[in-house]
């Protein structure tokens, strides 16, 4: 029997244990602060911290959308604790039940709170490739982020999607007089990026296809990401934007510009390195012209992006 199947089989037992643990703990977390950026669209802004700092479980923007019938959660944070705090924020704003948990991609800061929403009536929705990406990532999450799960940490707490959205076929979710359009993207920030558009408020939740101020992290395809940015920035009717990291102020379409400049500069400089036969170690030493003063966590993120872009573009 495979490990993954064993984990799936242990899910009911874990759910029971988690419930018991919560009741016994008796110290429910406080509600996360959220901002209603458009009628019915509530955002919690994550902090610009590195992934190994205290508070690293609260770095992504997460939130929820309230319809007439039920609530959709968009990303759950980097720990079960943050997921529970988000759940409390929801109950502070509405008595309606959560019917969907939508994960915008596989990264730890967006999915580790999923377990806080496990319930029979809740559907977990993601990109068609999210399930595979989670299978690849669970051992890494358990090895490095066990403390962000309920003890004892188990892979079964990292809940994957039971409904999926394929590239090329948008999916509509109805929250009761509120339609959400889910769009799955070809490889970009990761290989499983999903965006959520709330039609009635004109709010686009980009997941990590948009970074504001925090240095974008490349884990998919730099070419694909730039294409996704062009498509997203050209979308009509978008009145509000929720980035994966950082707060959007001002015109939605303009919010993509710094990220586009960064990634296209990176693309050009790595292509030039490759054309000159410059090896990876020399490409890494180059000062970037992409304007590091604009970006947070540059030193720990940019060199990794160079490495990833180099590995993608050397096969062009």
């Amino acid at each position: 029997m495979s490990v993954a199947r064993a984990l799936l089989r242990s899910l009911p037992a874990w759910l029971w244990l988690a419930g018991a643990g919560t009741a016994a703990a008796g110290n429910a977390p406080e509600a996360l602060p959220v901002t209603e950026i458009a009628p019915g669209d509530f955002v919690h802004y994550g902090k610009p911290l590195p992934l190994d700092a205290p508070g690293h479980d609260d770095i992504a923007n997460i939130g929820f959308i309230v319809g007439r019938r039920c609530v959709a959660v968009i990303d759950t944070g980097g720990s079960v604790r943050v997921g529970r705090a988000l759940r409390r924020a929801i109950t502070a704003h509405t008595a309606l039940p959560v019917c969907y948990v939508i994960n915008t991609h596989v990264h730890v800061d967006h999915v580790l709170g999923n377990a806080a929403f496990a319930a029979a009536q809740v559907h977990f929705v993601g990109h068609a490739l999210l399930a595979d990406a989670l299978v690849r990532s669970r051992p890494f999450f358990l090895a490095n982020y066990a403390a962000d799960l309920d003890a004892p940490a188990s892979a079964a707490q990292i809940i994957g999607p039971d409904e999926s959205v394929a590239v090329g076929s948008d999916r509509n979710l109805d929250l009761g007089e509120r339609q959400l359009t889910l769009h799955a993207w070809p490889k970009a920030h990761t290989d499983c990026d999903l965006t959520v558009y709330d039609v009635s408020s004109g709010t686009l939740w980009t997941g990590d296809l948009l970074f504001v101020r925090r240095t974008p992290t490349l884990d998919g395809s730099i070419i694909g990401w730039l294409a996704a940015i062009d498509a997203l920035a050209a979308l009509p009717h978008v009145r509000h934007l929720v980035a994966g990291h950082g707060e959007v102020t001002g015109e939605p379409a303009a919010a993509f510009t710094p990220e586009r400049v960064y990634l296209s500069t990176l693309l050009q400089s790595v292509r030039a390195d490759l054309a000159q036969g410059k090896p990876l170690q020399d490409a890494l030493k180059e000062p970037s012209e992409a304007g590091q003063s604009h970006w947070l966590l540059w030193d720990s993120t940019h060199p990794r992006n160079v490495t990833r872009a180099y590995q993608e573009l050397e096969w062009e």
Partner: protein
Amino acid sequence: MGKFSPSTRRTLCNLICLLGAAPSSVVADSQAPPGGAWQSLRPQLYGTRPIGEVGDESMSVSGPASTPDPSATPIVVQFGKELAGKVRQVRVIIDNNPSPLVTTMSLAAGLPVDEIDLRVRIDRFTSVRAIAETDTGRLEMRSIWVNASGGCSAPPAATQGGALGQIRFRPSTDGHAVQISIRHPNNSGFQVNPVSGDFIPPHFIAHIKLSSGGRVLMEADTGISLSENPTLRLVTGEPLPAPLAVEATDLPTQSRFAATWTGAGAAAH
């Protein structure tokens, strides 16, 4: 890994990690020696022969003090005037990797190799060492520390793709250097298949031969500490005449991959 039952192997996998875990007897014998693998590898590979430590001007190893991408860390071995052209074998060892021996590389007699570049997986904080054997049988070693976190268990990058065994040549404009890359997952044997939930069997490039103008420049035995899409770069004191040719073999399927680059700017496939 033959001496392990599947269940033992899976337990081992859980204990260590996914990427870079070794299907080699080194893991079986030593698992995780407190001081790294070098203490047990040294007698296996070199017995009691003395190993010197020359200065930077003769030989050096470099890499990032803290790797930006543990799944693809560039490591550079350089030789100065005293050693270039006199090295017949180079080994690279990553002490704290599950498969510490990255490569054993034999170099053509008299070939003035100035530099060898590798791209490796690094599991955790470790020393990375290179040992050169000269044509007179002298051994010299240099090492560095490289910090990495979570590299071994990091999920594979989403950059996979392309045709298995596709080979890229990237010669420098002055003809003194060439980088070769082989499209290959270099699976460690400890990664999980997302569809079946089973372990993906080990599948890695085990041997690479590089020739120039009909002369074999280098033959390397390699393993799963090389990154996905194994990549080597050689810099020499003399121009490398075309055609450049690569032959590679993987394990356990023993598939052979070969390509020739004849110049004129086009990468051969």
